[in-house]
């Protein structure tokens, strides 16, 4: 299909179908739609926007139509992304199913697994969480010890996960388990199971931001049907790594700052309601100016990375670079925004501070360079796999 024709039609459709409310900038986490069995919509417009986009398969525009996707080419997907950005339209659905599990299932799932899970992900019907880290397996993820024993027609899962984002709100989990205690990387398998299964409990962890997006998740004799194994038995590390690449790609998006084009512009606008001397600090202004250079360059890098990825030209380890750069950038962004906010940004629960939004976002951002693999792990991967530096 002619790309410019597609652009014109897409623009017209978005104009006609994106509710006005969904073109407002995202103010807080509550503005994101996560879907799921217990989906909470912040407004009828949010639900309508998800339904309309899901009907066209545009929550996952480049997935095959057979699995609930839009079946768009890489070039069409890029046009759609550009038109969504031009309109300022919100992402209709935020989902670990879309950003992490989906790509792994497309590559490693059986036909039955794809047909069961992908359309539900695309429509936002099932919300997923990720069972990776454990108390004894952080950066050394492959040291995980949650056991899955073969019990004939099912696996019996026992153990504990930690930092499980939104485990208390999720419907299903994709989970790394040990199926061979004698091996390390080659003793890991990749399982899918329902969080309503017997024997699962979750406990939210209070973070420095005062919020609890992460949980501890406990498995006590959880029965998982055999057909829920993704990939081969004891070959789950390959699936895990592939999925990590997509997780890192997703996390690198923090570096884009929700489409905010300039930190100085944002700080200036924030200051307009309470005129004071915030940006009269020439040193802060200078730091913001250089930050804006890096942030704009990173936006170009993101565009290049996605284009190269879709064309099969990206280095397999490039998500590590994206994750490293994007998260370090986001930490600087929030540090500068705290500086710009001065004592206002210190308020923790006042209405005018949006319940301490700036402070909590600043504190939350500190996790960016830890979650999904620390910056140090990403640098190790770049040094080894991209630069080919020798191992000690």
């Amino acid at each position, binding site marked *: 299909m002619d790309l410019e024709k597609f652009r014109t039609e897409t623009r017209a459709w978005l104009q006609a179908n994106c509710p006005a409310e969904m073109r407002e900038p995202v103010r807080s986490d509550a503005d994101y739609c996560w879907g799921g069995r217990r989906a909470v919509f912040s407004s009828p417009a949010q639900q309508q926007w998800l339904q309309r986009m899901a009907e066209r398969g545009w929550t996952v525009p480049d997935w095959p139509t057979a699995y609930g996707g839009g079946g768009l080419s890489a070039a069409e997907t890029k046009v759609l992304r550009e038109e969504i950005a031009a309109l300022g339209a919100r992402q209709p659905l935020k989902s670990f199913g879309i950003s992490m599990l989906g790509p792994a299932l497309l590559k490693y799932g059986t036909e039955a697994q794809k047909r069961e899970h992908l359309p539900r992900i695309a429509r936002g019907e099932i919300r997923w969480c990720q069972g990776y880290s454990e108390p004894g397996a952080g950066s050394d993820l492959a040291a995980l010890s949650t056991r899955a024993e073969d019990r004939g027609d099912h696996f019996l899962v026992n153990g504990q996960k930690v930092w499980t984002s939104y485990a208390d709100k999720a419907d299903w989990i994709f989970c790394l388990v040990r199926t061979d205690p004698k091996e390390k990387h080659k003793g890991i398998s990749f399982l899918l199971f329902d969080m309503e299964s017997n024997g699962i409990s979750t406990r939210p962890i209070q973070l420095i931001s005062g919020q609890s997006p992460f949980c501890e998740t406990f498995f006590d004799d959880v029965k998982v049907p055999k057909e829920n194994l993704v990939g081969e038995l004891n070959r789950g590390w390959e699936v895990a790594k592939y999925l990590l690449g997509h997780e890192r790609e997703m996390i690198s998006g923090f570096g884009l700052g929700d489409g905010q084009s300039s930190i100085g512009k944002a700080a*200036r606008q924030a200051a307009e309601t309470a005129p004071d001397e915030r940006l009269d600090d020439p040193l802060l202004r200078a730091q913001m100016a250089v930050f804006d250079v890096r942030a704009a360059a990173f936006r170009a*890098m993101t565009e290049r990375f996605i284009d190269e990825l879709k064309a099969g030209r990206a280095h397999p380890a490039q998500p590590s670079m994206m994750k490293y750069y994007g998260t370090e950038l986001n930490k600087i962004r929030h540090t500068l925004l705290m500086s710009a906010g001065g004592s206002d940004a210190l308020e923790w629960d006042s209405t005018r501070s949006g319940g301490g939004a700036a402070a909590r976002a600043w504190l939350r951002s500190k996790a960016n360079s830890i979650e999904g693999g620390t910056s140090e792990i990403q640098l190790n991967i770049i040094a080894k796999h*991209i630069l*080919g530096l*020798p191992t000690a």
Partner: protein
Amino acid sequence: MPLYLDDDQIIMRDSARSFMADQASVAHLRSLRDAADPTGFSTDLWKRFVEMGFSGILIPEADGGMGLGHVEAGIVLEEIGRNLTPSPFLSTGVGVVTALGSATPMLRERWYPAILTGRAIGTLAIDEGTKHHPERIALKAERSGKGFRLSGEKRFVQHGHVADVVIVSARTGGDVDERSGVTLFAVDGNAAGLTATPQRLLDASLASRLTLEGVEVEADAVIGEVDGGWDTLSGILDACRAAAAAELVGVADAAMAITLAYIRERRQFGVPVGSFQALQHRAAHLYSEIEVARAAVLKAQQRLDAKAPGAGRDVLVAKAMAGLAASLAAREGVQMHGGVGMTDDYDIGLYMKRGRVLEELFGDTNRLADRLAQLNGY
């Protein structure tokens, strides 16, 4: 349009890369430098550039050029940067050629064929102070007969002492820092009253101080509008900044490559020093900075080629980011080489020097980031 080189561009890059590595390596720079070559570049090599069609990359096909864009010019510049090749390509093939795009047919007919055949090289004379402030023009152009008389000084003019044509920004009205009252002129390199005094810079290139003492030019030497030359000048600077940014990416990339090669080989404590995490993490960080800069540069080139509104902003980002990356590459490169990084025998110091010159050319990172902040409303 995807943000990577297309197949034709990759073919061009590969051919430019092998040509430059073969004919214009760092050894070529060293031999010119050690001979204190008074031209500052090899005219033989420039002839070969011309034969490759490089001088006409940005000249429209209708005027006999290749009619290609800033992406293609950038491909050549990245290889120039990678090999530290002394060349009038940027000042002539990008700067003057872009300026002539806004000139009268008569001027174009005079200079395009000369540039295409290698008979002429040219340059821009913009800066008057030690830092790049293109508005800060004191050089005066007064009406004189049917033309103008130019008086004043310019500095940091690349290849100014051997340029056949010099694009000069002059003040025909307004005050020193104003954007109105700026007029651009194409001045003959051998015009009476024009004196170029070349200075050897730290990277062995030659940049001139130009003195114009009542230089007479015809009315049709004007490029763009009289008093309204600012927009034309901005367009020329966009092209030149994107070009310098591409060259900086080449400098950065090569500085990193020779540094990686060194730390893979150099052994201490019985192992290659490149196996130490302290160096690996810094190398990986440097790689990231260069990749991000490369993306920003390609984005700016594509936007310039698409004549996209606001492309100048992408150019500011590109040059500022490329400056950050190249400066880091040079600093880390010298440090990771250890003692030998301080010696003239090793090439890494040459990359540090060239990077420093390119950083100043057409505005350093601070200046461009400041301009970006202004455009962003703060």
